[in-house]
Protein backbone atom coordinates (compact mmCIF):
# COMPACT_ATOMS: atom_id res chain seq x y z
CA UNK A 1 0.00 0.00 0.00
CA UNK A 2 1.36 3.40 -0.96
CA UNK A 3 -0.26 5.51 1.74
CA UNK A 4 -0.90 3.35 4.81
CA UNK A 5 -2.16 6.36 6.70
CA UNK A 6 -5.10 6.95 4.38
CA UNK A 7 -7.45 4.67 6.27
CA UNK A 8 -6.69 6.24 9.65
CA UNK A 9 -7.12 9.68 8.11
CA UNK A 10 -10.68 9.04 7.02
CA UNK A 11 -11.44 7.21 10.21
CA UNK A 12 -10.48 10.31 12.19
CA UNK A 13 -12.87 12.30 9.97
CA UNK A 14 -15.62 9.99 11.16
CA UNK A 15 -14.51 9.99 14.79
CA UNK A 16 -14.66 13.77 14.98
CA UNK A 17 -12.16 16.12 16.58
CA UNK A 18 -10.14 15.04 19.60
CA UNK A 19 -9.58 18.64 20.67
CA UNK A 20 -12.13 20.89 22.26
CA UNK A 21 -12.69 24.65 22.21
CA UNK A 22 -11.15 24.99 25.61
CA UNK A 23 -12.35 28.01 27.52
CA UNK A 24 -15.88 27.38 26.26
CA UNK A 25 -15.90 23.60 26.56
CA UNK A 26 -14.25 22.20 29.67
CA UNK A 27 -13.76 18.53 30.31
CA UNK A 28 -15.09 17.21 33.61
CA UNK A 29 -12.14 16.01 35.68
CA UNK A 30 -12.03 12.45 36.96
CA UNK A 31 -13.11 11.91 40.58
CA UNK A 32 -10.06 12.04 42.78
CA UNK A 33 -8.23 14.54 40.61
CA UNK A 34 -6.12 16.99 42.55
CA UNK A 35 -7.53 20.22 41.15
CA UNK A 36 -7.17 22.82 43.87
CA UNK A 37 -6.80 22.99 47.63
CA UNK A 38 -9.67 23.97 49.92
CA UNK A 39 -9.54 24.60 53.66
CA UNK A 40 -12.58 24.06 55.83
CA UNK A 41 -12.04 27.00 58.17
CA UNK A 42 -14.48 25.60 60.74
CA UNK A 43 -12.31 22.55 61.39
CA UNK A 44 -8.90 24.24 61.06
CA UNK A 45 -7.01 24.79 64.31
CA UNK A 46 -4.28 26.87 62.67
CA UNK A 47 -1.54 24.58 63.93
CA UNK A 48 0.67 25.32 60.93
CA UNK A 49 1.72 21.74 60.19
CA UNK A 50 0.63 22.15 56.56
CA UNK A 51 2.71 25.29 56.15
CA UNK A 52 5.80 23.61 57.63
CA UNK A 53 5.45 20.50 55.49
CA UNK A 54 4.54 22.22 52.20
CA UNK A 55 7.37 21.51 49.73
CA UNK A 56 6.69 24.69 47.80
CA UNK A 57 6.22 27.08 50.72
CA UNK A 58 2.82 28.05 49.37
CA UNK A 59 1.03 28.16 52.72
CA UNK A 60 1.26 30.77 55.45
CA UNK A 61 -0.50 30.07 58.73
CA UNK A 62 -0.59 32.32 61.78
CA UNK A 63 -2.18 31.45 65.11
CA UNK A 64 -2.97 34.99 66.28
CA UNK A 65 -4.72 36.35 64.38
CA UNK A 66 -6.00 33.02 63.08
CA UNK A 67 -5.10 33.12 59.42
CA UNK A 68 -4.63 30.48 56.78
CA UNK A 69 -3.51 31.69 53.37
CA UNK A 70 -2.59 29.85 50.23
CA UNK A 71 -0.52 31.34 47.44
CA UNK A 72 -2.07 29.59 44.44
CA UNK A 73 0.86 30.55 42.22
CA UNK A 74 3.33 28.67 44.42
CA UNK A 75 1.12 25.66 45.09
CA UNK A 76 2.21 22.57 43.15
CA UNK A 77 -1.04 20.72 43.99
CA UNK A 78 0.78 17.71 45.42
CA UNK A 79 -1.68 17.16 48.25
CA UNK A 80 0.99 16.61 50.89
CA UNK A 81 -0.70 19.12 53.21
CA UNK A 82 -3.95 17.16 52.99
CA UNK A 83 -2.05 14.08 54.09
CA UNK A 84 -0.38 15.68 57.11
CA UNK A 85 -3.32 17.78 58.35
CA UNK A 86 -4.14 16.52 61.87
CA UNK A 87 -7.76 17.72 61.80
CA UNK A 88 -8.45 16.73 58.16
CA UNK A 89 -9.71 20.23 57.45
CA UNK A 90 -7.86 20.39 54.13
CA UNK A 91 -9.11 18.64 51.02
CA UNK A 92 -8.48 18.54 47.28
CA UNK A 93 -11.29 19.47 44.90
CA UNK A 94 -11.18 18.02 41.38
CA UNK A 95 -11.75 21.23 39.40
CA UNK A 96 -8.70 23.22 38.45
CA UNK A 97 -8.41 26.83 39.30
CA UNK A 98 -9.17 29.42 36.68
CA UNK A 99 -6.17 31.02 35.02
CA UNK A 100 -6.30 33.94 37.44
CA UNK A 101 -7.50 32.88 40.85
CA UNK A 102 -10.92 31.68 41.96
CA UNK A 103 -12.11 28.10 41.74
CA UNK A 104 -13.76 27.06 38.49
CA UNK A 105 -17.47 26.40 38.60
CA UNK A 106 -19.26 23.79 36.56
CA UNK A 107 -18.09 24.57 33.02
Amino acid sequence: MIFPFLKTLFLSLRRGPATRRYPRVVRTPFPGTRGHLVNDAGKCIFCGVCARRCPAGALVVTRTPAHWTLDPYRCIVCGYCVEVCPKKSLRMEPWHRRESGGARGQG
Partner: protein
Amino acid sequence: MGTVMALFFVVVVAPLVGLVLNGADRVVTARLQGRVGPPLLQPLYDLVKLWRKEPLVVNRVQIGYVYLHLAFMVMTLVLLALGGDMVLALFAHAFSALSLVIGASSVRSPFSRIGAQRKIMQMLAYEPVFILLVVGIYLRTGSFMASAVGRLDAPLIVSLPLVFLAYLVALEIKLEKSPFDVATSHHAHQELVKGVTLEYAGPYLALIEVAHFYETFLLLGIVAAFFVRQIWLGVGVALVVYAGAIVVDNVCARLRTTWMVRCLWTVPVMLAVCNIIWLYVRRTQGG
Protein backbone atom coordinates in the same frame (compact mmCIF):
# COMPACT_ATOMS: atom_id res chain seq x y z
CA MET B 1 -17.31 44.57 -22.12
CA GLY B 2 -16.09 40.99 -21.91
CA THR B 3 -12.59 42.25 -21.27
CA VAL B 4 -13.71 44.44 -18.39
CA MET B 5 -15.65 41.57 -16.89
CA ALA B 6 -12.68 39.23 -17.22
CA LEU B 7 -10.39 41.82 -15.64
CA PHE B 8 -12.79 42.35 -12.76
CA PHE B 9 -13.05 38.63 -12.34
CA VAL B 10 -9.33 37.88 -12.12
CA VAL B 11 -8.39 40.94 -10.09
CA VAL B 12 -11.21 40.99 -7.52
CA VAL B 13 -13.01 37.67 -7.50
CA ALA B 14 -9.97 35.42 -7.94
CA PRO B 15 -8.27 36.32 -4.64
CA LEU B 16 -11.57 35.92 -2.79
CA VAL B 17 -12.00 32.46 -4.25
CA GLY B 18 -8.39 31.70 -3.31
CA LEU B 19 -9.04 32.95 0.21
CA VAL B 20 -12.07 30.74 0.69
CA LEU B 21 -10.18 27.78 -0.77
CA ASN B 22 -7.36 28.34 1.69
CA GLY B 23 -9.84 28.61 4.53
CA ALA B 24 -11.47 25.38 3.42
CA ASP B 25 -8.02 23.79 3.25
CA ARG B 26 -7.43 24.64 6.88
CA VAL B 27 -10.82 23.34 7.99
CA VAL B 28 -10.46 20.09 6.05
CA THR B 29 -6.87 19.58 7.20
CA ALA B 30 -7.94 20.12 10.80
CA ARG B 31 -10.74 17.59 10.49
CA LEU B 32 -8.48 15.04 8.86
CA GLN B 33 -6.06 15.48 11.74
CA GLY B 34 -8.80 15.19 14.35
CA ARG B 35 -8.73 18.83 15.40
CA VAL B 36 -11.54 21.36 15.68
CA GLY B 37 -9.64 23.81 13.51
CA PRO B 38 -10.24 27.47 12.63
CA PRO B 39 -13.38 28.97 11.06
CA LEU B 40 -13.65 29.05 7.26
CA LEU B 41 -12.79 32.74 6.99
CA GLN B 42 -9.70 32.50 9.21
CA PRO B 43 -7.39 33.54 6.31
CA LEU B 44 -9.39 36.77 6.04
CA TYR B 45 -9.08 37.44 9.78
CA ASP B 46 -5.35 36.73 9.53
CA LEU B 47 -5.09 39.11 6.63
CA VAL B 48 -6.89 41.88 8.50
CA LYS B 49 -4.72 41.31 11.54
CA LEU B 50 -1.52 41.37 9.51
CA TRP B 51 -2.64 44.45 7.64
CA ARG B 52 -3.14 46.43 10.86
CA LYS B 53 0.30 45.59 12.21
CA GLU B 54 3.22 47.93 12.20
CA PRO B 55 5.16 47.62 8.94
CA LEU B 56 8.56 46.40 10.11
CA VAL B 57 11.23 45.68 7.55
CA VAL B 58 14.78 44.36 7.58
CA ASN B 59 15.80 46.41 4.57
CA ARG B 60 14.02 48.41 1.90
CA VAL B 61 15.05 46.07 -0.92
CA GLN B 62 12.88 43.25 0.31
CA ILE B 63 9.69 45.37 0.21
CA GLY B 64 10.15 46.10 -3.48
CA TYR B 65 10.29 42.40 -4.19
CA VAL B 66 7.06 41.76 -2.32
CA TYR B 67 5.25 44.19 -4.61
CA LEU B 68 6.92 42.61 -7.65
CA HIS B 69 5.91 39.17 -6.41
CA LEU B 70 2.27 40.21 -6.17
CA ALA B 71 2.26 42.33 -9.35
CA PHE B 72 3.69 39.57 -11.53
CA MET B 73 1.32 37.04 -10.05
CA VAL B 74 -1.63 39.26 -10.96
CA MET B 75 -0.08 39.91 -14.37
CA THR B 76 0.13 36.16 -15.05
CA LEU B 77 -3.54 35.79 -14.28
CA VAL B 78 -4.55 38.83 -16.34
CA LEU B 79 -2.51 37.62 -19.33
CA LEU B 80 -4.14 34.21 -19.26
CA ALA B 81 -7.64 35.55 -18.63
CA LEU B 82 -7.40 37.96 -21.56
CA GLY B 83 -6.20 35.18 -23.80
CA GLY B 84 -2.68 36.58 -24.06
CA ASP B 85 0.66 34.98 -24.79
CA MET B 86 1.23 31.90 -22.67
CA VAL B 87 5.00 32.10 -22.92
CA LEU B 88 4.87 35.60 -21.50
CA ALA B 89 2.57 34.37 -18.72
CA LEU B 90 5.01 31.57 -18.00
CA PHE B 91 7.83 34.06 -17.57
CA ALA B 92 5.71 36.44 -15.52
CA HIS B 93 4.86 33.57 -13.21
CA ALA B 94 8.47 32.47 -12.93
CA PHE B 95 9.54 36.02 -12.23
CA SER B 96 6.93 36.30 -9.51
CA ALA B 97 8.45 33.29 -7.73
CA LEU B 98 11.92 34.63 -8.41
CA SER B 99 11.16 37.97 -6.74
CA LEU B 100 10.26 36.09 -3.60
CA VAL B 101 13.58 34.28 -3.82
CA ILE B 102 15.57 37.49 -4.33
CA GLY B 103 13.65 39.22 -1.57
CA ALA B 104 14.39 36.35 0.77
CA SER B 105 18.08 36.34 -0.15
CA SER B 106 18.42 40.06 0.45
CA VAL B 107 18.26 39.60 4.22
CA ARG B 108 20.91 38.11 6.44
CA SER B 109 18.78 35.43 8.09
CA PRO B 110 20.23 32.01 7.25
CA PHE B 111 16.79 30.41 7.47
CA SER B 112 15.45 32.82 4.89
CA ARG B 113 18.41 32.23 2.60
CA ILE B 114 18.24 28.48 2.77
CA GLY B 115 14.52 28.78 2.14
CA ALA B 116 15.35 30.82 -0.96
CA GLN B 117 17.81 28.18 -2.16
CA ARG B 118 15.15 25.55 -1.71
CA LYS B 119 12.61 27.66 -3.56
CA ILE B 120 15.01 27.67 -6.51
CA MET B 121 15.27 23.90 -6.26
CA GLN B 122 11.48 23.76 -6.30
CA MET B 123 11.39 25.92 -9.43
CA LEU B 124 13.96 23.65 -11.00
CA ALA B 125 11.65 20.76 -10.28
CA TYR B 126 8.32 22.13 -11.48
CA GLU B 127 9.24 24.63 -14.23
CA PRO B 128 9.94 21.89 -16.83
CA VAL B 129 6.41 20.64 -16.31
CA PHE B 130 5.02 24.12 -16.90
CA ILE B 131 7.12 24.57 -20.03
CA LEU B 132 6.05 21.20 -21.36
CA LEU B 133 2.45 22.15 -20.66
CA VAL B 134 2.78 25.29 -22.81
CA VAL B 135 4.55 23.31 -25.55
CA GLY B 136 1.81 20.70 -25.45
CA ILE B 137 -0.89 23.33 -25.81
CA TYR B 138 1.04 24.85 -28.72
CA LEU B 139 1.27 21.50 -30.48
CA ARG B 140 -2.45 21.03 -30.00
CA THR B 141 -3.63 24.51 -31.00
CA GLY B 142 -0.80 25.74 -33.18
CA SER B 143 -0.66 28.99 -31.22
CA PHE B 144 0.93 30.36 -28.09
CA MET B 145 -2.12 32.49 -27.35
CA ALA B 146 -4.20 31.33 -24.41
CA SER B 147 -7.39 32.31 -26.24
CA ALA B 148 -6.77 29.47 -28.70
CA VAL B 149 -7.52 26.96 -25.96
CA GLY B 150 -11.08 28.22 -25.78
CA ARG B 151 -11.62 27.56 -29.49
CA LEU B 152 -10.69 23.87 -29.29
CA ASP B 153 -13.33 21.36 -30.26
CA ALA B 154 -12.22 18.70 -27.72
CA PRO B 155 -10.92 19.47 -24.20
CA LEU B 156 -7.15 19.53 -23.64
CA ILE B 157 -7.28 16.57 -21.29
CA VAL B 158 -7.98 14.28 -24.24
CA SER B 159 -4.69 15.11 -25.92
CA LEU B 160 -2.58 15.91 -22.84
CA PRO B 161 -3.49 13.28 -20.21
CA LEU B 162 0.09 12.57 -19.14
CA VAL B 163 0.98 16.26 -18.96
CA PHE B 164 -2.06 16.64 -16.73
CA LEU B 165 -0.72 14.00 -14.38
CA ALA B 166 2.69 15.69 -14.28
CA TYR B 167 0.96 18.99 -13.63
CA LEU B 168 -0.81 17.52 -10.60
CA VAL B 169 2.56 16.72 -9.04
CA ALA B 170 3.85 20.21 -9.86
CA LEU B 171 0.72 21.59 -8.24
CA GLU B 172 1.59 19.85 -5.00
CA ILE B 173 4.92 21.70 -5.01
CA LYS B 174 3.44 25.04 -5.92
CA LEU B 175 0.86 24.80 -3.16
CA GLU B 176 3.67 23.97 -0.70
CA LYS B 177 2.16 20.70 0.41
CA SER B 178 3.85 17.60 1.83
CA PRO B 179 5.89 15.79 0.65
CA PHE B 180 7.30 18.85 -1.16
CA ASP B 181 6.73 21.68 1.32
CA VAL B 182 10.42 22.34 1.71
CA ALA B 183 10.72 26.09 1.20
CA THR B 184 7.88 27.49 3.24
CA SER B 185 4.38 26.58 4.28
CA HIS B 186 1.97 27.01 7.08
CA HIS B 187 3.70 24.14 8.82
CA ALA B 188 7.24 24.01 7.38
CA HIS B 189 8.55 25.29 10.65
CA GLN B 190 10.57 22.24 11.50
CA GLU B 191 13.72 22.98 9.58
CA LEU B 192 13.50 26.55 8.42
CA VAL B 193 11.22 28.21 10.94
CA LYS B 194 9.28 29.90 8.13
CA GLY B 195 11.71 29.74 5.22
CA VAL B 196 11.42 32.39 2.51
CA THR B 197 8.73 34.37 4.27
CA LEU B 198 10.53 34.40 7.60
CA GLU B 199 11.74 37.98 7.47
CA TYR B 200 8.47 39.47 6.33
CA ALA B 201 6.03 40.85 8.84
CA GLY B 202 2.76 42.73 9.05
CA PRO B 203 1.34 44.21 5.84
CA TYR B 204 4.15 42.78 3.71
CA LEU B 205 3.38 39.27 4.86
CA ALA B 206 -0.26 40.05 4.10
CA LEU B 207 0.73 40.91 0.52
CA ILE B 208 2.50 37.56 0.18
CA GLU B 209 -0.64 35.88 1.48
CA VAL B 210 -2.74 37.73 -1.10
CA ALA B 211 -0.34 36.63 -3.82
CA HIS B 212 -0.78 33.09 -2.54
CA PHE B 213 -4.55 33.42 -2.90
CA TYR B 214 -4.11 34.56 -6.51
CA GLU B 215 -1.77 31.67 -7.11
CA THR B 216 -4.17 29.11 -5.68
CA PHE B 217 -6.79 30.40 -8.05
CA LEU B 218 -4.35 30.42 -10.97
CA LEU B 219 -3.15 26.87 -10.38
CA LEU B 220 -6.63 25.45 -10.00
CA GLY B 221 -7.80 27.56 -12.94
CA ILE B 222 -5.22 25.79 -15.11
CA VAL B 223 -6.64 22.47 -13.93
CA ALA B 224 -10.09 23.66 -14.96
CA ALA B 225 -8.68 24.85 -18.32
CA PHE B 226 -7.88 21.26 -19.21
CA PHE B 227 -11.65 20.74 -19.42
CA VAL B 228 -12.50 23.92 -21.27
CA ARG B 229 -15.93 23.91 -22.96
CA GLN B 230 -17.25 21.80 -20.06
CA ILE B 231 -16.32 24.48 -17.57
CA TRP B 232 -18.38 23.12 -14.67
CA LEU B 233 -16.76 19.75 -15.08
CA GLY B 234 -13.45 21.61 -14.97
CA VAL B 235 -14.37 23.41 -11.75
CA GLY B 236 -15.46 20.12 -10.24
CA VAL B 237 -12.22 18.41 -11.19
CA ALA B 238 -10.23 21.37 -9.86
CA LEU B 239 -11.96 21.07 -6.49
CA VAL B 240 -11.37 17.33 -6.42
CA VAL B 241 -7.70 17.92 -7.27
CA TYR B 242 -7.44 20.46 -4.45
CA ALA B 243 -9.04 18.04 -1.99
CA GLY B 244 -6.65 15.35 -3.23
CA ALA B 245 -3.70 17.67 -2.66
CA ILE B 246 -4.85 18.21 0.92
CA VAL B 247 -5.21 14.49 1.51
CA VAL B 248 -1.76 13.78 0.07
CA ASP B 249 -0.42 16.57 2.28
CA ASN B 250 -1.75 14.66 5.25
CA VAL B 251 -0.53 11.18 4.42
CA CYS B 252 3.10 12.07 3.63
CA ALA B 253 6.16 13.07 5.52
CA ARG B 254 8.19 15.96 4.15
CA LEU B 255 10.96 14.76 1.89
CA ARG B 256 14.36 16.19 1.22
CA THR B 257 14.92 18.79 -1.51
CA THR B 258 17.21 16.55 -3.53
CA TRP B 259 14.63 13.79 -3.40
CA MET B 260 12.02 16.21 -4.72
CA VAL B 261 14.06 17.16 -7.79
CA ARG B 262 14.96 13.53 -8.45
CA CYS B 263 11.34 12.49 -8.14
CA LEU B 264 10.04 15.24 -10.43
CA TRP B 265 12.65 14.76 -13.13
CA THR B 266 12.15 11.03 -13.35
CA VAL B 267 8.47 10.18 -13.44
CA PRO B 268 6.34 13.31 -14.04
CA VAL B 269 8.68 15.09 -16.45
CA MET B 270 9.23 11.89 -18.40
CA LEU B 271 5.48 11.31 -18.57
CA ALA B 272 4.99 14.81 -19.91
CA VAL B 273 7.79 14.35 -22.47
CA CYS B 274 6.22 11.11 -23.70
CA ASN B 275 2.93 12.93 -24.13
CA ILE B 276 4.61 15.69 -26.13
CA ILE B 277 6.45 13.22 -28.38
CA TRP B 278 3.22 11.36 -29.03
CA LEU B 279 1.44 14.66 -29.92
CA TYR B 280 4.33 15.68 -32.18
CA VAL B 281 4.43 12.38 -33.98
CA ARG B 282 0.69 12.44 -34.52
CA ARG B 283 0.86 16.01 -35.79
CA THR B 284 3.65 15.36 -38.29
CA GLN B 285 2.01 12.19 -39.57
CA GLY B 286 -1.43 13.73 -39.75
CA GLY B 287 -0.30 16.95 -41.37
